[in-house]
């Protein structure tokens, strides 16, 4: 074996050690938050807890959210997000999310002392034995012990150094499995029972389904109104004008000719309206070529310099393509209108069953994700597909918007809806 896998292992162990260290310190803060919440609870009978409990619960939630983010970074899987904290004290006491986080904070000292603090402690103690004892024993004289070794001679010092190295190595060796254990345990604590998780998921799905139906109904209404007030009305007007022109054909050819010119203009406008309507429903390039070329076509229409890089495996499921396209279109329009920048980079990538689109401009930043109906619309559209939109826009820029949508482009369930699917045997 070469040195490489070994050095990778050592680096991974050091990283795990650092994380263990961080986790054990965090456990201290967590248990303080837990104590605050516990104190508020015990003060409830005398009434003092009433105003104290909600802020304490919020404090606890912030810590738990931070922990979830860390676990996601460390293990790639975040504990399920809890339902938002309810407002009233009584509702708070019944909220499973709050109770779970309380239990987690009270167990934190144990998980810290018995589990995650062990590897850093071993390494620290080991290093003290290996690096300090050999120089210290002559100063301290008899009665100086390191672990179970009396260190009052050169032989003892040597033994202590070796033992210390052993402790440090053991700590390093233990760090990755201990961290994994800790992550699994904490994830289970924060996740709660499977039943509750499923219930929460069902609630989310019910909400997003209701929203999808709303959006769909609104879209149908818009299309109906556009057709009714636009193309349909123009076609009626066209018939009327044609009728008048027909009557005037012999008596007043000049006016008849003018009317025919109007007919032509009206029919062109009706066609243009139909075209815009079709484009709003499903942009032709998206239908023909899929997401990458549709976004390239958006880029060509933009007033900014838009650079598109795409790494996509052929066609994606139609709903995913549509949602991503309209989201990118909205983000590009925002960049053009508000950012003050000149250049936008759009990156489309599909990995681990997720489509990820990043839109980054070189503008002044400071975009507020909660303002503007456009972004809200994008969020709702993405939420229907379990997608997310993250906006990072510090004042002074740059603004980076990242959207992610789960997509299984090769799954048989969805491939039948794409144009490139092969026919059934």
């Amino acid at each position: 074996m070469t040195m490489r896998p070994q050095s990778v292992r050592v680096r991974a162990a050091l990283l795990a050690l650092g994380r263990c260290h961080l986790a054990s310190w965090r456990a201290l803060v967590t248990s303080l938050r837990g104590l605050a919440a516990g104190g508020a609870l015990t003060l409830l009978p005398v009434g003092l807890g009433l105003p104290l409990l909600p802020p304490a619960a919020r404090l606890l939630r912030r810590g738990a959210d931070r922990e979830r983010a860390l676990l996601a970074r460390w293990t790639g899987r975040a504990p399920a997000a809890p339902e938002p904290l309810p407002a009233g004290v009584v509702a708070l006491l019944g909220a499973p999310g709050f109770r779970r986080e309380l239990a987690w904070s009270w167990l934190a000292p144990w998980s810290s002392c018995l589990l995650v603090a062990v590897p850093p402690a071993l390494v620290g103690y080991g290093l003290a034995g290996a690096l300090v004892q050999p120089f210290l024993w002559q100063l301290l004289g008899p009665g100086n012990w390191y672990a179970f070794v009396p260190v009052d001679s050169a032989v003892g010092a040597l033994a202590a150094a070796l033992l210390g190295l052993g402790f440090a190595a053991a700590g390093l060796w233990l760090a990755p499995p201990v961290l994994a254990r800790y992550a699994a345990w904490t994830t289970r604590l924060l996740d709660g029972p499977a039943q509750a998780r499923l219930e929460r998921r069902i609630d989310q799905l019910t909400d997003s389904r209701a929203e999808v139906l709303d959006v769909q109904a609104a879209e149908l209404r818009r299309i109906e109104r556009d057709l009714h007030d636009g193309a349909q009305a123009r076609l009626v007007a066209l018939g009327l004008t044609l009728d008048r022109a027909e009557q005037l054909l012999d008596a007043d050819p000049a006016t008849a000719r003018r009317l025919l010119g109007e007919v032509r203009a009206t029919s062109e406008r009706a066609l243009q309206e139909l075209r815009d309507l079709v484009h709003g429903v499903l942009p032709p390039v998206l239908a023909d070529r899929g997401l990458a070329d549709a976004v390239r076509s958006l880029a060509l229409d933009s007033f900014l310099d838009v650079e598109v890089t795409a790494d996509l495996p052929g066609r994606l499921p139609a709903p995913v393509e549509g949602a991503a396209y309209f989201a990118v279109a909205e983000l590009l329009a925002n960049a053009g209108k508000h950012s003050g920048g000149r250049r936008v980079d759009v990156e489309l990538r599909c990995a681990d069953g997720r489509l990820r689109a990043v839109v980054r401009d070189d503008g002044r930043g400071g975009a507020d994700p909660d303002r503007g109906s456009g972004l809200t619309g994008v969020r709702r559209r993405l939420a229907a597909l379990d997608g997310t939109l993250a906006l990072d826009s510090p004042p002074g820029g740059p603004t980076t918007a990242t959207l992610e949508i789960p997509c299984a482009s090769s799954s048989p369930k969805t491939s039948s809806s794409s144009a490139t699917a092969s026919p059934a045997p």
Partner: protein
Amino acid sequence: MRVVLAEDLFLLRDGLARTLTDHGFEVAAAVDNGPGLLRALRESAPDVAVVDIRLPPTYTDEGLQAALTVRRERPGLPVLVLSQYVEQLYAQELLADGRGAVGYLLKDRVTRTAQFVDAVRTVAAGGTVMDPQVIARLMARSTARGTTADLSARELDVLRLMAGGRSNAAIMAELHIGESAVAKHTAAIFAKLRIDHTPDSNRRVLAVLAYLRR
């Protein structure tokens, strides 16, 4: 002049064939799908092809793809593309080989028979015809980006008409200027867009391309 026609709607195909025949074209083949178009273009060696972008069996950009494929085999084969919509991306792909003899028009334009037949003739003669919508969007875009700063208002007018496939004579008539003025403006446009004269390329096409790429 021999034309190959591809359009999947029977009524429109019939109408187009009639219009072209009335104006002295010979319709060598009129097909309604992509593979048929590919075959007709290879076998009947037409002088010009009039092609709908969206054709069966895929109902995507089959017509455009067939036209581009045959143009790779027979460089410079004149192709006029008709579509319900105009997309810069497709315009760019048509113009990409820099040889000209391409056109891209909205389907509505066929209702103005004289202009449509003119466009077919221009493309067949090696010219370039872009739909006014494509040109309007290009102009709006380059104005917003400040890239037309170098061109005078008159030169912009000339470029717009040039991209629309008008001949020098037509430009003279439309702008009410003389032949020497058109030549002067054209030379100025080429110079400002840095388009050099080479025997193998169509400078008018390159001027339009330069605009599309900005």
